[in-house]
Every structure is written in C-alpha cells, then in structure tokens.
C-alpha cells in the first residue's frame, strides 16, 4: 500500500511541477528539492543530484537549446523560456530519481496484471541492455592498445546500435509469439 501511495503522490507532484511556469517559483522548488534530497535517508545523495543535473543538461542540449537558438535566428528572445524549461526539467528529474528510491514499482503496479507484465518485460530488457552495453565497452577497452581513430570509433558505435536494433526486433518477435501462445491475440 505504501508504494501505491508514494506513486500517487509522485504523480500528483509531477502534475503540479508541470503546471508551474514562473521561473522564480521553479527555482525555489528546485532548491527545496535539492535540500530534501540531501536530507532524506537515501544512499548516494550527491550522485542522485549529479545524475539529475546531467539528464537536465542533456534535455536542454537536445530540446531547449535548439528552440532557444531558433528563437535567436527569428529575432525572438526566448531566454526566459530556456530558464523555465531548465528548472522544470531539473525539478522533474530530481523528483523522479528521489521518489523512486522509495517506490517499489513492482508492488505499486501489482493491482494490474497487464501493467505488471509490461513492467517485467521493460525492466528485464533494460537490465539486459545495460549489461550488454557494459560488455561492449569492456570488450573494446580490452582490445584497445592505443587511442582509437574516429573511423574505428564510428564502426564501434554503428555496430552497437545495429546490434541493439536487431536484438530488439528479435526479442519483439519472440515476445509477440509468446503472448500469442498465451492467448493475448485471440
């Protein structure tokens, strides 16, 4: 029950954060979240804050910054938007990372068979892929004696991407057949 309540609280808080549009309020909320994360009895607090910052920067780099630059190109000042989006993405990410230290998602979603099933599939894929990516990187490191040139690195990344694409296709096919055999499509 505890996990379900935490999940509900998390969802309500996410909606609340998404509704905020004042940079000042978002700044205050972000600061409170950082302090709360630091004060809560969780492991690797600093790491959690760092990860939230990196995710926020990545989001900014891929989404907010291009939008801001497009604004500059069109002669519009979107700096306030950039600040608001930065604070919002940071607070949402930190909220997610912190809340999920307390939520066992498997327990929180056990009211629905379909959701539990989906969660098991997604998490098992994620774990497998994370471990495979680690293996790919270790294998490359193991075979690397000198700094690699750009072409070799591109070959490596291309191979990793192709591998995961092919693997996803293969797994999806397996999954489809498994679900079909259990009567999902009848």
């Amino acid at each position: 029950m505890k996990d379900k309540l935490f999940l509900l609280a998390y969802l309500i808080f996410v909606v609340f954060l998404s509704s905020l549009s004042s940079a000042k309020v978002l700044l205050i909320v972000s600061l409170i979240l950082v302090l709360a994360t630091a004060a809560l009895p969780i492991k690797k607090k600093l790491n959690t804050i760092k990860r939230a910052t990196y995710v926020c920067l990545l989001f900014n780099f891929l989404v907010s910054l291009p939008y801001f630059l497009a604004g500059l190109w069109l002669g519009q000042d979107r700096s306030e938007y950039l600040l608001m989006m930065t604070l919002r993405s940071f607070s949402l990410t930190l909220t997610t990372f912190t809340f999920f230290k307390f939520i066992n998602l498997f327990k929180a979603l056990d009211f629905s068979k379909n959701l539990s099933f989906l969660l098991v599939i997604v998490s098992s894929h994620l774990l497998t892929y994370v471990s495979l990516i680690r293996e790919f990187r270790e294998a490359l490191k193991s075979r690397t004696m000198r700094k690699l040139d750009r072409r070799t690195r591109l070959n490596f990344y291309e191979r990793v991407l192709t591998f995961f694409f092919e693997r996803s296709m293969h797994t999806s096919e397996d999954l489809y057949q498994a679900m079909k055999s259990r009567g999902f499509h009848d």
Partner: protein
Amino acid sequence: MIELRNLWFKYEDEYVLKDINLKVDKGERVVILGINGSGKSTLLKILNGLLFPERGEYLYKGERLNEKSLRDPKFNLRFRREVVLLFQNPDVMLFNPTVYDEMAFGLRQLGLKEREIKERVLRWSEVFGLSPYLEKIPYNLSRGQKQKLCLACLLILEPEVLLLDEPTSNLDPKSTGLLIDILQELDLTTVISTHNLSLVPELGNRLVVLGEGGRIIYDGSVDGFLSDKEKLIEAGLMHKHRDKPYYHLH
C-alpha cells in the same frame, strides 16, 4: 607472472570476491570453476585490467596493476597485447566491417606494416578455418565461428596470457570439441572459467574453485577436487534431488 594478493571486489554494496589470493606461473593452465554468480567473470575482468579491486593488489610480472598504471600508454600497450580476454558473448567483441579487419584490428594498433598484417591474418585464418570468410561481415557468422574468430583476433597478437570466460557455454558439442582441441595445442599461460565440471580435466591441470560466498575454497589438482565430495557440495556443484537420497553430479 600473475599474482593477486588479498583481493576484495564489490558491486554496489555486495562483495562478490573476498580475500582472493592467487598466483599463476608462466605456462600454467588454470581452470576457475564455480556456479553462476560466483564471481568467475569478475575475476577474469580484474585479471584483464577492466575492473579494479576495492582492496588488495594485482601484480603482473611483479608490477602493480591499477587504473593509474594502465593510464601509461606504454604499459597499456604492452599489457593489452600480452594479456587478452575472450568474452563469454563473442558478439560484444566484434564490430569491424569484415573478418579481415577484425583480425587486423589489434595488429594495426601495434603499428605493423600492412604486408605483415596480411601475412599474419592469412596464417591465423587458416589455423581457425576462417579463410573463406575473410571478406564476410563478422557478426553474420555462426556462433561457433564467431567464437573462433574472437579467439583468432586475440591469438594473432601472440599474447602471453590468455583469459577465457566460459568459452564453451554457448557452443554445441562439435564446436566445443574443436575449441578444446585448439586450446590444448596452445603453449600459453591460460586461465579459463567454467561451470561445467565435465570439461575441467580437458581445460587445465590446476583447478581453482570459487565458492558461493566469493572465496576460493579449493586450489589444487583437478583429481584432488573431483574426489572430494565435501568440497563439491560446498561449491554447489554436487546435489541431491528431492526423490533421491544420494548426492550426484550432472
């Protein structure tokens, strides 16, 4: 050649290797035996300088090996050429556009001339029966061929220590037999991990057994271990079924 002293390693909060002391001399053929999750792969990755212990030290030819020593380009070049690891899943090792390029990958890093590279690739591809596939895409080969290709990529460097992580785990009996033949012909220091008890006598002459708690529970001759029922049970390699009162091996 290789020495691990009081080595401890942990993932997150859990120690997977505890107080490991292991000395491997030149030319030895060591088999690391243990059930799944006993820390065999972790141990091999430590020996290959991919993971670093929480406590204890690793000496390679008397030199301490750690993240700092591997940052030295000269040492890194020498170590990576001399100590090579065959991963359990060959797919993670292959990324070059052709089998030829895959085999030439290490040699090109060593700065050899293209003529010598070609000569070595042709020689080793012949040894492993890969000559017809030199222009093929490596990842489209069969599982057994990929395994052979990965091994060829390592042996072409003429290493001194060969580490193999469960090399037969995904192979059919015929490919397993071929791989064992190749391994038995090599005159190298080898450390091979496996959970397959029946293959141990064919893979090496010294056995190191990792127990479920991440400690070495046996280090000695293969025969000595196979005749020690208590140790076999402790290592989780011998068990009894619910309907049978006696312990047995599979």
